[in-house]
């Protein structure tokens, strides 16, 4: 018999001198992948397999989770990501398949921190995030807060977590902590940062904080998680545990591990500072463009008809002089153009050099010390909720959720 095996079939593999029993796993690039009794997977020609038996599929035993109702009511809203992922036999890669209840099963100590309600919103890899899902997420978190949650934990893939945290920062007024958490090492490995990040995020969600934040490892050690403001955080490394950094400001707090004690800085917004609110409109016709030397004016012209454009310029906030007419035209046609810096650290100032002054004359708004990605999300939100261009411009020039500070107090 060839072909037609299903995952889990017990097969006899006649490869090499001695036949061996194994479990059929999948087919990959023309080879049948078989798990031998030793646990090793091997890729062999499917023609050397024969079916021994097809075991019945055994459901994993349900483990009932007992919860202490006297603890803080916390909600877990899961969107996917490596904090809750498992191998996919089809592709052999890690994908997100767990729901929030699985997280409690995997990390029992969470039950000493709160009393959880779990809600699975979606199971996407975070690079597939959309504006529509941001809106669903904001709505779900808002409902949880309205429903009495004293803190909300959002599990999220790390790639676009900072964008989502910024989006919820603008869309939500929250009197309770809304904590984004993920992991940089998949949850299926013993060294995963998911356990510590999840425990620290739950502790932050039960703390006195009252804003949207990201809680992730502060260093390569398993000792402290940083609490980053949702509008000031950026993923600064492709793979390290401590990839998330507050830019231009210090984290608003920290959680030490394994003691799980939470420390909030004076600047952190405290619990109960506002009433719950939701304004979830977003303008889709917005974009972020990174300037580079030699960029053609056609690149700018491509954004004709957009409601808003964030430029990530060089240094103090510059693009080459030859782009200025195209930018002026864009603004005249009604696009709101905001300048940020690809330096990430520091403040935009277009009043120092001629190019900058010309940009200001053309009508470009200085994004001050906003991160380019935060400025984009803010622009989407502002234009989604404010139709008057002057009011929109004023909002872009104001600090709404800590994204925009008047004083540069922190260096690199």
């Amino acid at each position, binding site marked *: 018999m060839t072909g037609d095996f299903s995952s889990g079939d017990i097969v006899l593999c006649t490869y090499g001198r001695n036949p061996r029993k194994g479990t059929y796993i999948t087919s990959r690039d023309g080879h049948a992948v078989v798990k031998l009794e*030793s646990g*090793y997977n091997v*890729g062999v020609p499917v023609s050397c397999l024969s079916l021994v038996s097809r075991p019945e599929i055994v459901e994993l035993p349900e483990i009932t989770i007992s919860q202490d109702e006297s603890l803080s009511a916390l909600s877990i809203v899961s969107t996917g990501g490596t904090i809750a992922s498992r191998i996919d036999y089809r592709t052999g890669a890690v994908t997100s398949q767990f729901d929030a209840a699985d997280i409690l099963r995997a990390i029992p100590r969470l039950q000493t921190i709160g009393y959880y309600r779990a809600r699975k919103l979606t199971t996407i890899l975070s690079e597939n995030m959309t504006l529509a899902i941001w809106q669903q997420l904001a709505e779900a978190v808002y409902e949880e807060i309205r429903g009495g949650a004293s803190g909300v934990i959002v599990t999220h893939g790390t790639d676009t977590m900072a964008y989502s945290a910024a989006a919820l920062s603008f869309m939500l007024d929250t009197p309770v902590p809304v904590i984004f958490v993920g992991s940089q090492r998949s949850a299926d490995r*013993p060294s995963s940062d998911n356990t510590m990040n999840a425990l620290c995020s739950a502790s932050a969600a039960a703390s006195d904080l009252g804003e949207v934040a990201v809680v992730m490892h502060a260093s390569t*050690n398993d000792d402290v998680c940083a609490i980053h403001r949702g509008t000031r955080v950026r993923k600064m490394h492709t*793979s390290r545990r401590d990839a998330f950094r507050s830019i231009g400001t210090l984290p608003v707090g920290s959680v030490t591990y394994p003691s799980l004690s939470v420390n909030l800085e004076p600047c952190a917004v405290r619990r109960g500072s506002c009433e719950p609110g939701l304004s979830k409109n977003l303008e889709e016709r917005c974009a972020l463009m990174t300037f580079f030397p030699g960029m053609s004016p056609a690149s700018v012209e491509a954004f004709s008809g957009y409601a808003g454009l964030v430029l990530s310029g060089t240094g103090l906030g510059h693009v080459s002089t030859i782009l200025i007419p195209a930018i002026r035209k864009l603004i005249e046609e009604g696009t709101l153009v905001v300048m940020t810096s690809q330096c990430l650290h520091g403040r935009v100032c277009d009043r120092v050099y001629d190019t900058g002054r010309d940009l200001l004359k053309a009508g470009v708004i200085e994004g001050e010390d906003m991160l380019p990605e935060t400025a984009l999300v803010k622009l989407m939100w502002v234009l989604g909720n404010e139709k008057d261009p002057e009011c929109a411009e004023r909002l872009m020039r104001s600090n709404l959720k800590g994204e925009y500070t008047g004083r540069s107090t922190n260096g690199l």
Partner: protein
Amino acid sequence: MDYENLGLKAGIEIHQQMNTREKLFCHCPTVLRKFDERSGEFFRYLRATESELGEIDEAAKEEMKQERQFCYYAYDTTCLVEYDEEPPAPLNPEALEICCTIARTLSMTPIGQVHTMRKLVIDGSNTSGFQRTALVAMDGVLPNGGSIETICLEEEAAQRVEGDTFSLDRLGIPLVEITTSPCMKTPEEVREIAAYLGMVLRSTGRVKRGLGTIRQDVNISIRDGARVEIKGVQELDLIAEVVKREALRQENLLSIRDQLRDRGASVVEEPVDVTGIFGTTKSSILKRASRILAVRLPGFAGLVGREIQPGRRLGSEFSDYARKCGVGGIFHTDELPAYGIAAGEVAELRAHLSAGDNECIILVAADPGKARCAAQQVVIRAGWALRGVPEETRKMLEEGSTAYMRPLPGAARMYPETDVVPVTITSDWFDSLPLPELLTEKRDRFVQNLHLDPALASQLVSSEQVFLFERMVAAGISPALAARTLLSTLKELSRAGTDVSHITDQEILDILSAVELGEAAKEAIPAILGMVSSGASVAEAIQECAPAISREELRAIVKKIVESRSDFITERGKGALGPLMGVVMDEVRGSVDGKLVSEVLRQEIAAHVKEKEIHPV
């Protein structure tokens, strides 16, 4: 011992480090460092994860009994891959090629598509909590008619500095793991097969040499016993002793089991709190503990203290199990009163428990949590004593006895390494790999073709220098000179305190080539090597130790010496040759080969003698 009668079955796993340029899954060099060269430290926790089938490996569960914080040393020769901060690079093709070359030498069948797996190891020796490993080929042949089951390519674990601190320099060095079937029936056979496989590995010339670069694990069972894996036998000479002692241990455990059954022995599963009895004890361990628990073993008296292999008793096994909970060990009544525990206390304990004379009582002392955990472990191990031999992974102690490490790991510890793409091995490529000449064949060829003494040839092929030796012979250097330099001269220099480790192969080759060309004398080799070791170039060293002297200049020097010692020559005649050789050699300071000096000196002495006969004074 009659091993056939005992039903001894043994197999081995050999782990050999490869001498590749880069590590298996990153581009770091495969060099070991001194701990004080570290550039940083960090620390982590590990925890057991489920396999893709939803199971947790038994061995991993055991390691999880204590939460441990692991500290790691980092170096400028390690990177984010070793720190578990970056996904692995693709499988090192050089390592795969060496592994396949070995597989082909052992007549194995390569796997068409090689899948890298994660083998769960959460003792801290891997930052990731797993060791990456890939099955590369199957079904090889051994000289005893037995078979090799598999050959795998694995990453080396981090080296333990002490306790829970590890050094990352070694982590990721490619290892080849060869697993035989349980096809060996005597301890001596195990040693022979291990030696054979080691020879095959070294024949490639591409494996690391020296202490710790090769380790053997031995799998042993006897009839009615159980499979026990003994980890990390580094010295080949101990391997037979390890097998002997394990066979003995299993035999003794079976004999204890039979006696326990005859006595109707049993294990009382619920431990008893006896903290109160030791309120005024002089034992510092008991005094410190907040909880003392007694495990009751009716029928075990006398057998817990019975030796099962040199230096090890059944009680030692109980103690190993208990230590997994973080306690220092146990006390058992077979060895009491002792260790500060008074006879009166033992009597009170027995009375309190109404224990009979045939009952052995085990005491564990710690905080309540640890004591409970340790008592449960003792109950588990004592239960095994009634059934026979538990399947275990054990570690070797000095001299060849062993101690319990953890349960045998199962297939549940294997998980696909999702970050590494499978590699295809085509049969065309595999079949085109050149087979190395085995060191045993090399030795025979050295004897036959190069006319080396058989003992010297054996010494050469077992030395790390054999491949350099062959390069030298190919470059026209006489085999005897090459062998002497590599096997004796360098060793003697090293013994005399010269650091020869900085002398490169090419430098040695250049020096010997100069000697063969007559540019320096053989006698000057140690002096030249000495200078090169302290930083001089080969040319400088030859110039300094052996300035060029022409044949005419030599003859003039010899003549002068002969004339100045005319009386001595007259007295001794040809017999003056030997003593005068040293004088001339001193004068020419190693610039001329001794053979040439001897030839010229002989001629000049003869001429001098002849002249004296014609013109006597």
